[in-house]
């Protein structure tokens, strides 16, 4: 059963008299207890998609349409996210779906103590008395591995390191065991040794609370570590979809293949790095045909003229490319 199902999601942003098409017809579904990743470079629309799931965009400037945007809560009722009012969303957020962000310091209130911010979740959603809420907060802080939680509860965000702040956000997001956790680049701002800790914590929390995970990242290493299934996005479209093992071992879209090739393996030393030529196109100025055509090593006239659809290659594998890739790689 799907916890989240999105069909043909389009997100436009108004810029002056023009529109930027940030997301152009994306289909995403997240099954119960499944760990799904969206991977792509900056500007590909992955974060915008994540924010749309929580309905955190304001209209204007954002205009969101979808054929289907359904989230199924714990009790099995389907919710149409696009039709929800802000008040209805308040009830869903934290209890049913929660999100953690890249830069934890931006999402903590600098003039409230850590304890007060954690208490809020319990006070607003569970209608607890402050004292009881604090007891639960301390309990949560222990669960996410914060040493000396009583002391930390009385501190302000600036007194905590980045890793600890991210732990606090994870505590907030998972304290009511939501059904879906959306993690938007949760470790990009952290050091590698802290990244290892945080990824382990997220996995642990998801397993314990039986949460589904939607992981948004640019790092294929994180995808491999955290997800079962992955969507590769480029310029607002999904270019490849499949299980993590399949995509990382036998990528079929030239973009996915190029992304993986740019990461040199740890075994043998290389003298030069494989590079993708040119830059990601500007969102107002995407190529006419396939969006990757100007950077693709296998581009043909057909690619330049007409945008390829997302071909279904069976077993949940989908590829936005005219060519079967094995024949391409051999060229």
């Amino acid at each position, binding site marked *: 059963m799907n916890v989240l199902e999105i069909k043909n999601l389009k997100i436009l942003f108004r810029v002056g008299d023009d529109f930027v098409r940030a997301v152009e017809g994306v289909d995403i579904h997240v099954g119960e207890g499944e760990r799904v990743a969206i991977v792509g*470079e900056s500007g590909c629309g992955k974060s915008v998609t994540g924010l749309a799931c929580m309905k955190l965009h304001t209209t204007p400037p954002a205009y969101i349409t979808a054929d289907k945007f359904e989230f199924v809560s714990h009790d099995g009722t389907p919710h149409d996210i696009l039709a929800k009012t802000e008040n209805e969303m308040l009830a869903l957020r934290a209890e049913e779906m929660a999100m953690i962000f890249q830069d934890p310091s931006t999402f903590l209130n600098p003039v409230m103590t850590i304890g007060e911010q954690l208490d809020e979740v319990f006070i607003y959603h569970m209608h607890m008395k402050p004292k009881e809420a604090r007891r639960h907060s301390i309990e949560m802080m222990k669960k996410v591995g914060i040493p000396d939680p009583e002391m930390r509860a009385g501190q302000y965000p600036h007194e905590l390191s980045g890793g600890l702040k991210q732990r606090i956000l994870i505590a907030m997001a998972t304290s009511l065991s939501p059904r879906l956790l959306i993690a938007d680049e949760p470790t990009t701002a952290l050091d590698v040794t802290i990244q290892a800790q945080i990824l382990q914590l997220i996995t642990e929390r998801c397993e314990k609370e039986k949460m589904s995970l939607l992981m948004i990242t640019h790092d294929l*290493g994180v995808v491999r570590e955290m997800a079962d299934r992955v969507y590769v996005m480029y310029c607002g479209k999904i270019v490849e979809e499949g299980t993590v093992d399949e995509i990382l071992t036998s990528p079929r879209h030239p973009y996915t293949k190029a992304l993986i090739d740019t990461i040199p393996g740890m075994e043998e030393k290389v003298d030069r790095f494989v590079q993708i030529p040119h830059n*990601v196109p500007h969102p107002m100025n995407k190529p006419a045909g396939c969006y990757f055509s100007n950077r693709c090593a296998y581009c043909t006239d057909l690619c330049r003229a007409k945008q390829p659809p997302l071909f279904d290659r069976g077993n949940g594998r989908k590829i936005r490319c005219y060519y079967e890739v094995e024949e391409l790689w051999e060229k």
Partner: protein
Amino acid sequence: MGEVILKTNDLTVDFKIKKNVFGKPDRLSAVQNVNIEIRRGEIYGLVGESGCGKSTLANAILGFVPITSGSFECFGHTMTAASKASEWKEVRRHMQTVFQDPYSSLNTRFTVWQIISEPLYIAGERDERVLRERAAALVEKVGLSLRDLDRYVFEFSGGQRQRIAIARALIANAELIICDEPTSALDVSVHSQICNLLLDLREEFGLTYLFISHNLSLIKHITEHMAVMYLGEVMESGATDAIFADPRTPYTEALMSAILEVNPQKDRERIILSGEARSPINPPDICRFANRCPRVCEACRTMPLPPAVSVGEDHVARCHLIGKEA
């Protein structure tokens, strides 16, 4: 391998932090007794987590922050805390730097040729025609076109801006280029473009790089020598291949195991460190990694970090455990 062009001798940088007007200021130890050697023509990697002092070390070598004690030898000069401004100016002629964030390191009110030729202007060249010609000679080498000379930086993407920054570092014929995380602000698909460019330029101009990065896999592939820093101290240094083949300090091991592998068929054992780095303010004189070390022993908590000992050809490490395991 060429001669040593930069050698630090117990280089130390402290910052004084005043809590209030009265009382003794606290000592923030950013770089502590660092000894590294960079040879002509090589790429020397400096790796560590944020706050470990790798950028401060680079800034001290460039003279951006004052040295507290120790010295370094560079291009025939010995620079200490007492060196004069004129001497710094002389040494800095040989060095240039490429910063991490090309969105803040380039002047938005200058055109590209003005940015690129600024080091020459500072060196005393005032003839605009000459400045422009020198800039024009370089732009194509870094992968930009002559038409870009009169444009402003806001018209360029991150990768292109970094190319401008690299051209600026090259124009005054510097021999040592200090690259402070030159790719970490860029998109993944542009990383390799910039790395390849740096490698090509090294061939062409015979450059030496001090390459600062937290990305170990990058360091592995492009550097000949490297140093691993933790909270201001170099834990391990030497030939990159030797360190990767046989890391001898627990911190280096943990750092290497934290590299995320992309290939699902390969599985490595992960060491997940507990806790976080201690505060660099008034650190006790013991091993700074002791509070997180998975193999901590009594000596680590009570005695100062031992001096570097050789653990193989071109490979030194500092750890109480060395020699005890066998």
